[in-house]
Every structure is written in structure tokens, then in C-alpha cells.
């Protein structure tokens, strides 16, 4: 009996020493507010939608000062053009010519832009600006409206341009 008690005590000590278990349980609504990640399959895209025309308005007010007319760049990064140049002697890597996923464009604008006021755009505006940027080179038509369903289906020009260099051990 005594030995049994000692054994039980040892087991109990072992368990408590192996795991602190101090993490606080996160509630689903907390996660929904925290989670900014948009996956390539569209997981995480919020409700709402935006048209090319609405995006042109938002772009002229919030983006053009840094990225130039039609996303041509200057003073900051060029966003458009360069399609078909990646195999040439002078490759031009822009969000439209190089990035493989439209979800990345949405994700990055929503989390990080505009630089002086990140996360200030409404989700409808993020959809709209994404639609506008992709329309400049004809990746989406001029009358496109993007939402959680249509955005992941947009085929970017360089969708198949990446080679995975990571080799897992298993």
C-alpha cells in the first residue's frame, strides 16, 4: 500500500514536471479577430466584395502617392507590368508579374498597407484595390468584382513559376 502511494506520487510529479500547461484556452471568436492569415485556397478571406471601379477610387486616394499612377511605381515599389519578362535578360518582378497568388496581394494589402495606416482599409476596399491592380494588366476584366469566392480562382501570370527548394527530412 505504502509503495503504491509512493509510485502514484512519483507518477503525479512526473506528469506535472513534464508540462507546465499554462496556456490560456483561446475562444473561437478571439481567434476570428486575431487571425489575419489568408491561405491560397481562400481560407480566411472575409465577407465583402470590391469592384475594379471602386478600387481605382481607393487607389488614387490611398496608394497612388507612393506607388504611382496605374501601379507603375515611384517613389515606392512598382506593382504592375513586367508580365512575360521573367525569362528575359531584364526580368521585371512586380506583384502582378511575379507573385503566384492573388490571395497574397489581398493578404499583404490588408495587413500592411497603406504604410502610414496599416489595417485601416475596410475589407470591401481591400477587395476593390486588389481587383483594380489586377485589372491594369488584364489579369482580371475591367468589370471584375472580387470576393471570397472569386479571388482564390484568379490565375496569376506566374502561378506556376516557383520551384520548391525545401526538402523535408521525412
Amino acid at each position, binding site marked *: 500500500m505504502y509503495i503504491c502511494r509512493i509510485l502514484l506520487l512519483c507518477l503525479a510529479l512526473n506528469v506535472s514536471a513534464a*508540462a*507546465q*500547461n*499554462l*496556456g*490560456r*484556452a*483561446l475562444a473561437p471568436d*478571439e*481567434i476570428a479577430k*486575431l*487571425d*489575419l*492569415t*489568408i*491561405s*491560397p485556397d481562400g481560407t480566411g478571406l472575409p465577407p465583402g466584395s470590391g469592384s475594379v471601379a471602386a478600387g481605382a477610387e481607393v487607389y488614387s486616394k490611398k496608394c497612388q502617392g*507612393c506607388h504611382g499612377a496605374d501601379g507603375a511605381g515611384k*517613389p*515606392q515599389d512598382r506593382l504592375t507590368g513586367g508580365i512575360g519578362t*521573367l*525569362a528575359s*535578360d*531584364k*526580368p521585371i*518582378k512586380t*506583384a502582378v508579374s*511575379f*507573385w*503566384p*497568388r492573388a*490571395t*497574397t496581394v489581398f*493578404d*499583404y494589402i490588408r*495587413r*500592411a498597407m497603406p*504604410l502610414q495606416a*496599416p*489595417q485601416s482599409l475596410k475589407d470591401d476596399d481591400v477587395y476593390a484595390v486588389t481587383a483594380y491592380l489586377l485589372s491594369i494588366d488584364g489579369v482580371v476584366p475591367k468589370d471584375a468584382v472580387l470576393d471570397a469566392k472569386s479571388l482564390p480562382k484568379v490565375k496569376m501570370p*506566374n502561378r506556376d*513559376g*516557383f*520551384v*520548391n*527548394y*525545401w526538402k*523535408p*527530412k*521525412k
Partner: protein
Amino acid sequence: MKKREGFVGSDVFVAGNGLMDRRLLLGGGVAAGIAAGAAGLALGQSPDWMKTPGRGFSGYGMPSKWQEKVQRPFSPAPGRPGTGSSRTPLHLLEGTITPNGLHFERHHNGIPDIDPARHELAIHGMVKRPLAFSMENLMRYPMETHIRFIECPGNSGGYASVQPAQTTAGGINGLLSCSEWTGVRLSTLLDEAGVQPGAKWVVAEGADAAAMSRSVPLEKCLDDAVIALYQNGEAIRPEQGYPMRLLLPGFEGNMCVKWLRRLKVTDAPVDARDETSHYTELMPGGKARQYMFLQAVKSAIVKPSFGMAMRGPGLYEISGLAWTGAGKVSKVEITADGGRTWAPAALGEPVLSKALTRFRLAWKWDGRPSVLASRATDETGETQPTRAAWVAQYATGQFYHFNGIQSWAVAADGTVSNVYL
């Protein structure tokens, strides 16, 4: 121990143009040949600072005022003061540990001033129990300490340019630092949350104004990844992610997400902006390499280097840094004749895994123009490629993950410039 008498005559020279046996480090009798360049001081009379009491204590010490030129170089982008990088002045430092105030910085929209009482680390996604960890609770977990380098994958990108950049060793290679990091093993927290079958990646996100985000293989997170809370013994600096950063030893610095606030366990990478637009290499033909996480074997001579002047023929110590994300550096070779002959350098012990290794070699410079270079090999057998071989892998203008051999030209007048072999 081998007797010094063993090194006589030409025996000490083990490669062309004056490179000496690595066992013969400068010191004692070997230093006798160093040219006395500087004028001697008039010693004998006690200096002023011996004749008056020195100053008092301070709450947090600062470097000597005579060291005020030891600074991180940076050039802020107009209109974007918090975007870009500053570099560790490697050429002005010694040993392998980077002082906290000189650790390189790479920020995407400034340094947030995070109140630790209002910061939590969330773990969610493909886990059985989504959890949040306060700083107070994290501090109660068992901690571990390791010396690790962090290198930006854009480091040494200047070597991709057609003409060699005439700048200091730190100016070229200073997106590289090495610290003693202390924190909680990430696998402990992931175990507590209970990773679900089928999970393969973890998306890490910072609490900065760019919400900087990267996809990390779950395999790495369950291996040697640490939630770093301390840097060289003190709380991690704001520029390095206060109150916590993800530390992925040997992986791209950009993946070691600072101001870490969220880890989402997923079955696939998310193609975040910084793993598509950045840190991918376009190859000839138009395809791009993606997910090149490991910082490959690399080395750089920091003494002598650009901006330093050799003071005439004589004995000099060549010294530099070598590192590899794959583990330990096993060998560093040095040439003083532009790559014709190579001699092994002495490695500073202990050689640590995924940390900087200091190498040294004595060199008798005869005063003629010489080209120095270093070439490191790691324990997996990988050796640095030539610059030309590195450049040939990629399309025009690609500069991420440069690990080619670097070289310095020493002119007859003792000036040092960057040169391609």
C-alpha cells in the same frame, strides 16, 4: 605540444605569398616582425586620469566615448524611416558575439513599442487546444540557452552586382549577427496545444505595423526552434522583437519573426509576401526557387578589409568569420595569391553549431599587391562556391542568399579594396 623550434626557415609557410602555419598565431616571438608604424608615446609621466577621481556609477553602462564611431550603418529611405535595414559593423568588432546595440536590424514598418503586459502569443489552427501565452506564464516554462547567428537572406547581396562594391566588410556582410539567445523551446508549447495529424507548416506573424508573416516548416518548429526572450543575458531588444521573437537556428533571418504574436498551424504554406516577392531567386529560364530556408556555408575576412590600411610589409593577422545554417564549420581555408594556393586557418574554439566561428591565420606580407580570400566548408561537406558559379545559377539581378567566396585586394600602398576573383 609541438615545439616552436619546429617552425624554422620556410617550414612556417604553408601556402603561397606568405601564409603561415595555422598553429603559428601571432603572439610572443612571432609578433616581433610586426612593423612599428605608430610613433611611440611619451610614457613615464602619470596621465591626467590618474590624478583626479574618475566618474561615478551609471544604471546602464555605455561604450567608451572613444568608441563612438562603432555604429550600425544605415540609410533611411525617404518617407519610410522605419523600413529597411542597419548593419552590424563586423570590421570594427572582435570575437563572435554581437553587442546587443549593434545587432543588425531589418524592419518592414518600424519598431513597435510593445507593452509586455498587453502582449500574448497565440497558437491556433490545426491544434487540439488553441492557446494563448502571456509573458508572465511563458517565463515559467523551462528555458534553454544557445549561441546562434541570425543572417538576413539579403546579406552580401552586393556581390551580385557587376562591379565589386567598395565598402566595408560590415557594409557588405553586416546583415549578420550572433548572440546568446535564451527562451522556451517551441515544441514544448506546440505539444501543449496538441498538433493535429496532417499539419505540416506553421505561419508565424509579428505584432509590428507590417504584421510580418512567414510560413515555417512544422519540422523545424518541432526541432530546435525557440521562442527567444533574452539576448546576451538581457531582455531581447525592441529592434530584435521585444518581448519575443521566433528563433529558427540556421534559417533565414526573415523567418525568425520579431514581436511574435501568433503561430497558426496549417497543412500548407500561405505564400506570404515575404516568401514570394522576397527571398526567392529567379533562375535563367524564368522559374524561381522558393523556400530556400537554410543559410548556406559562408565566410568573410574582416581583417584586413576595405577601409583598413596595411602599414608596410611585415607580419599581419588575417581574421574573419565563418558560419553555416547546416551546423558546424569544419574548415576555413585562406589564399593570399588570388586562389592559387590555400592554407587552413585556425578556428576559434569551441566551434558551435549555427553560430559564428572566428578564424585566424598569420600572414607575412612582402609588400606586393596580393589578393586574399577565404573559403569555408561545413560538417555536411558543403563548400562555398566561387562568386562566378553562384551568379551563374540565377537570372540577372538576383541577390538573395549569396554565399560565394569573397576576396580583398591589398595594393602595394597597403590600401584594401573589394575585388572579384
